[in-house]
């Protein structure tokens, strides 16, 4: 290609010349040169030292050394650079709010993918204070004791307080915390939570080394370690017991590694979601975005998460000692590579192959033992608090009934931002399989939620092929984006009028990453009635506490589907379970056995072949027999079980702790809503505290505290440093946030003015929320101007778009023309999408507004015109804009203009259009194609040429065959399935748009050569090095989502 672009550009060239002429002064260069050589020498020295160290030391402390030894660089770095880095650091999506004036966070540095602690002025202080977590579990039979060791080290030159929020299994009883400083072990004591905090605060203020372990949720804990001197190392040892999961002959040990970002919902869902009307009032804003108020401790469960590509700096190792008493086999771990040492019969050591694994997903270990038939077990223990027992009862085999009970199945799918990418695809896959397995006389409906909710059908539909097809189409259309307003979804799904002839089963598919877990569990408990609630936990770091409890309160069952396992097994298990529970209405006749305070207080129904674990107090000698009673598909079931006290537990201290934990659960369950609102009844609180202190376990109201009384550190205030979390594995939100950024619907609006107010910025409502409007006639902000874009009172010409940052308290008024949309969203192009809310309220026409809102509420996203074709009547006019395909692939990379030699694609930019300009948040650009038709496209959007060829309607058969062809492709290529031929090769396709024909030819080959043909023009890209710009990117899925919208597009495979 000829390099013809150096010809003088009248406008640009003087600027280029000016910048080129801007040369550094000689003395500046000399200073830089000597600094450079010093830095190289220093770095090389470090490299030599590192190579002499053991490799593990190098890799653990390498980053520390790396940073600390880059002295010259730091020394020569100046304030301006620090300021720049500080700005970068601000892009970290979630920042713990603290009141400490000297608190800092470990945050990503500029470009080198290394996480550093920054001071208030942005200066780099050091790296993450948590170095390593080691997990050591001892499993004997059904019980495991796990010791978690967290190694903290202060990497900076001043005293710090490290704060680390981390997960533990939701049903574990945490009964020990020890702080280890050098060779001193300070055993933590359980105290009432506020008292423990007070002891800790006092010790901290006195300069003593202290640690505090708080429970935020049954599966989220916060470890605080105060007064760590520079260079000092402190180890925290936490120990807990739990019972293993056992189902269908398989044991499962589970250890969560990361607290995924939780969505903190607002008190009221946004008006568009609920369709609530507002009182028209001249002074009141039309919409107020409420801060989170249901979740009173949002900040305590919101962990700062590192940006993609940056490591948090701490790692984890896991070792599990299995003692099964019989041969162990089929040891697997779906999410990690493991090594197994079967050193003795019936014993094995399982460890992570990577000794320094990234803690970004759950560790799941499954194994079988020599028998599939585990017998009943009765274990006892004796301690200071008396005698306790644990009874493990095996259920009967599953009996399949001759005739299935007719069911009304509601499938509820979470399509929030955290589900975007692999999780939602896995959820869809699972749901599709479940739908296909429905019984003929069942009815069903699909329901999805994120910031809003939407049904697939107006009412439950019979299980016919046509309905299943519609449901699958609805599913295909879903993608993950926006908030996780689960409460409206729960209320909607459980509150739907019941079908008297059918058993309703509501099945939730979600990762459960929300902050109002207690409230949701409470809502399920209060609203389930006769409905059975089942849950699928989808993802690699799911909120087990929420999903377990939802299923428990809804008298159903939970199934976890991680992203590496097939959905088929999960779907089959689900169908088997809802088809026939294994045992219901369970009771036990104790026959005078001296037992009291049996936990759980109510036995759950068993939907799968897994044991029933019961704990209780033993007030005498346990000899005799008991009877297990229940109901199977065959009718009444009873079994006598002989009880002998012979078997003492191998974990003598475990049983009373597990009993106490069950007791606490029972007390907590009595008013979960109050618990969420921080209004838990004092009496229950006291009871829980008493149990926690007496049995020495963590609860929501008791904490572990340890103070080193032996010495006092230097009397300076410690900086607070929060340990950040890794990006949860499998979650794509944030990584490609710009691709998921715009979740908006275009709505036909009346000429109106709208006012938008961000009530306050808190929790996940962040300061970088952006408001956007298309089609503005004028706008102004009451309090201040929009992010430096346009001053108050500025008038934009009709048809323009704008956006800006609004802050708490701002009221933004926008006057819009017809056919416009406006919205509010949070997140930045570098950050993660936090929430998106749609706003539209023509103040002048409330009735119409309400209708529109109702319409929007009732209309699932799939039916909204993502592609706005033509005018309001959807007529195409050659002079009007034709397409916007948001979030599709980076079409611009393949667009050449007419002037570029070598391109065969003839485009010309219509720069004169009013839609051009940086103010357009949508990045929408209007192009003139071939001089005839306009197309709007953006940075990551695809444009298709529409030519007014002869319209040909597509038959239903052809559409179905095109749809079937789609399903043969992996989901990442779903967008192009329609363009596949029978052999799976990409071929040409023809899209029909309102009777107009769109020709599209695409080839994608594995060697990354591609060819794009648009209309009569074609363009080829060879050996593209960036897979993300290839057409086979996940973004392309929208293409087909759109193509399958019957109202907008019809698709036909080329002959």
């Amino acid at each position, binding site marked *: *290609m000829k*390099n013809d*672009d*150096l010809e003088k550009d009248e*406008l*640009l060239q003087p*600027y*280029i*010349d*000016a*910048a*080129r*002429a*801007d*040369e*550094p002064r000689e003395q*500046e*260069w000399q*200073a*830089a*040169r000597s*600094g*450079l*050589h010093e*830095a*190289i020498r220093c*770095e*090389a020295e470090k*490299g030599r030292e590192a190579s002499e160290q053991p490799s593990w030391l190098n890799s653990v402390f390498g980053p520390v050394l790396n940073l600390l030894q*880059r002295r*010259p*660089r730091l020394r*020569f770095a100046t304030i*301006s*650079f620090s*300021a*720049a880095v500080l*700005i*970068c650091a601000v892009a970290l999506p979630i920042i713990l709010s603290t009141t400490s004036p000297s608190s800092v966070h470990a945050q990503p540095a*500029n*470009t*080198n993918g290394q996480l550093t602690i920054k001071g208030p002025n942005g200066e780099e202080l050091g790296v993450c204070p948590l170095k390593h977590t080691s997990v050591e579990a001892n499993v004997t039979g059904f019980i495991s004791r796990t010791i978690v060791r967290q190694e903290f080290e202060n990497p900076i030159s001043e005293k710090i307080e490290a704060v680390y929020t981390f997960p533990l299994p939701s049903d574990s009883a945490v009964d020990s915390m020890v702080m280890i400083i050098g060779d001193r072990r300070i055993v933590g004591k359980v105290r009432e939570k506020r008292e423990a905090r007070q002891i800790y605060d006092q010790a901290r203020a006195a300069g003593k080394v202290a640690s505090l372990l708080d429970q935020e949720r049954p599966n989220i804990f916060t470890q605080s370690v105060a007064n760590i001197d520079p260079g000092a190392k402190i180890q925290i040892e936490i120990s807990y017991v739990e019972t293993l999961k056992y189902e269908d002959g398989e044991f499962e040990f589970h250890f969560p590694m990361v607290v995924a970002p939780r969505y903190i919902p607002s008190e009221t869902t946004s008006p568009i979601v609920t369709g609530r009307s507002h009182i028209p009032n001249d002074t009141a804003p039309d919409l107020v975005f409420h801060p989170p108020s249901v979740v009173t401790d949002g900040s305590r469960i919101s962990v700062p998460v590192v940006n993609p590509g940056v490591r948090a700096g701490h790692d984890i190792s896991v070792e599990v000692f299995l003692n099964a008493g019989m041969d162990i086999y089929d040891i697997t771990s779906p999410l990690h590579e493991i090594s197994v040492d079967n050193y003795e019969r019936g014993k094995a050591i399982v460890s992570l192959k990577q000794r320094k694994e990234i803690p970004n997903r759950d560790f799941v270990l499954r194994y079988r033992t020599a028998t599939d038939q585990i017998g009943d077990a009765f274990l006892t223990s004796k301690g200071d608090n008396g005698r306790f027992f644990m009874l493990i009862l095996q259920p009967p085999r599953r009996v399949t009934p001759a005739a299935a009970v007719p069911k009304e199945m509601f499938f509820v799918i979470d399509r929030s931002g955290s589900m975007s990418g692999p999780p939602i695809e896995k959820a869809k896959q699972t749901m599709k399989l479940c739908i296909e397995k429905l019984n003929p006389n069942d009815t069903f409906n699909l329901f999805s939620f994120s910031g809003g909710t939407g049904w697939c059908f107006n009412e439950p539909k019979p299980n016919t092929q046509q309905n299943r097809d519609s449901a699958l189409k609805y599913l295909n259309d879903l993608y993950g984006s926006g908030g996780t307003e689960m409460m409206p979804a729960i209320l909607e799904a459980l509150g739907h009028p019941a079908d008297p002839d059918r058993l309703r089963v509501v099945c939730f598919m979600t990762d459960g990453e929300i902050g109002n877990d207690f409230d949701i569990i409470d809502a399920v408990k209060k609203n389930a009635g006769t409905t059975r609630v089942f849950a699928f936990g989808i993802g690699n770091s799911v909120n087990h506490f929420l999903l377990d409890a939802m299923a428990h309160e809804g008298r159903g069952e939970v199934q976890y589907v991680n992203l590496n396992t097939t959905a088929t097994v999960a779907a089959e298990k689900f169908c088997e379970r809802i088809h026939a529970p294994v045992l219901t209405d369970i009771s036990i006749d104790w026959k005078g056995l001296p037992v009291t305070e049996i936990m759980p207080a109510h036995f759950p129904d068993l939907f799968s072949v897994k044991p029933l674990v019961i704990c209780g107090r033993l007030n005498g000698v346990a000899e005799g027999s008991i009877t297990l009673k229940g109901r199977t598909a065959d009718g009444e079931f009873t079994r006598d079980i002989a009880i002998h006290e012979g078997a003492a537990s191998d974990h003598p201290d475990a049983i009373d702790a597990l009993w106490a934990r069950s007791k606490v659960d029972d007390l907590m369950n009595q008013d979960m809503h109050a618990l969420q609102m921080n209004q838990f009844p004092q009496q229950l609180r006291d009871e829980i505290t008493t149990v926690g202190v007496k049995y020495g376990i963590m609860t929501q109201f008791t904490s572990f505290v340890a103070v080193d009384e032996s010495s006092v550190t230097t009397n300076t205030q410690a900086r607070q440093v929060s340990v950040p979390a890794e990006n949860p594995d499998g979650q794509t939100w944030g990584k490609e946030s710009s691709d998921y950024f715009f979740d908006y619907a275009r709505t036909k609006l009346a000429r109106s003015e709208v006012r938008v107010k961000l009530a306050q910025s808190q929790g996940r409502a962040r300061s970088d929320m952006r408001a956007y409007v298309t089609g503005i006639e004028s706008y102004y902000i009451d309090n201040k101007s929009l992010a*430096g874009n346009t001053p108050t009172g500025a008038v934009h010409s009709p048809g323009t778009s704008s956006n800006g940052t609004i802050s708490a308290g701002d009221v933004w008024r926008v006057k819009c023309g017809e056919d416009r949309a406006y919205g509010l969203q949070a997140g930045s192009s570098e950050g993660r999408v936090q929430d998106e809310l749609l706003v539209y309220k023509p103040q002048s026409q409330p009735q119409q507004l309400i209708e529109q809102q109702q319409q929007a509420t009732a209309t699932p996203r799939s039916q909204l015109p993502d592609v706005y074709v033509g005018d309001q009547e959807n007529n195409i006019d050659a002079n009007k804009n034709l397409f916007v395909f948001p979030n599709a692939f980076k079409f611009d*990379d*393949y*667009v*050449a*203009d007419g*002037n*570029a030699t*070598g*391109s065969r694609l003839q485009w010309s*930019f219509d*720069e004169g259009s009013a839609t051009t*300009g*940086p103010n357009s948040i949508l990045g929408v650009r209007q192009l003139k194609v071939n001089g005839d038709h306009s197309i709007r496209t953006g*940075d990551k959007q695809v444009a298709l040429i529409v030519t007014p060829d002869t319209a040909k309607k597509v038959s239903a058969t052809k559409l179905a065959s095109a749809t079937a062809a789609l399903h043969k492709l992996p989901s990442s290529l779903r967008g192009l399935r329609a363009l596949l031929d029978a052999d799976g090769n990409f071929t040409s396709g023809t899209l029909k748009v309102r009777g107009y024909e769109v020709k599209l030819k695409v080839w994608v080959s594995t060697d990354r050569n591609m060819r794009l043909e648009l209309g009569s023009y074609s363009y080829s890209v060879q050996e*593209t*090095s*960036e897979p993300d710009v290839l057409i086979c990117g996940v973004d392309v899925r929208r293409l087909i989502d759109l193509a399958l919208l019957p109202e907008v597009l019809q698709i036909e495979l080329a002959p």
Partner: protein
Amino acid sequence: MAGLPAEQVEELATRFGRIVYNAAYRVLGNADDAEDVLQSVFLRLLDGRRAIASGVSEWGAMLRTMATHAAIDLLRCRPRARFEPFDGFVSVPAETQSAVEVAEKSRMAATLREVLAELPQRDAQVFCLRHFEELSYDEIAGELGLSVSQVGVILHRGKAQLRGLLEERMSAGARKDSVR
């Protein structure tokens, strides 16, 4: 893969240090930032965790590419309405340019950097390599793993966007003037 030996990096720093520094300076217009980029580029060569392609024939082009990349990263992180430090010394021959001209050129360079920061990273980098470093299409394509035609497309698009942004700034300035 191990990084380069320190001796080789030293040698490269001696040979190409100034080029890298100038490349960064043109993008950033600031000695402190340019120095940081300078160090990060050469220290990266030492870093064993990064793969350095063996048999690099065009060290100059590669280092300039690394420098512009790091510089644009930094540029994009800077606060938008950044004050350009006025250090009081402008080394311009007095006989060729008036003070007004110098100030105007300085303003234009700053404006260009400001709008450059608004371009996607790769577009900005291609622009800098072509117009600041005067690399050929082939060299840019080779360094960035693009096809020559893609370089052309990106460059054209980048320039169009820069023109648009500059025009917008000019018209905004004009509006402000008319209000006064």
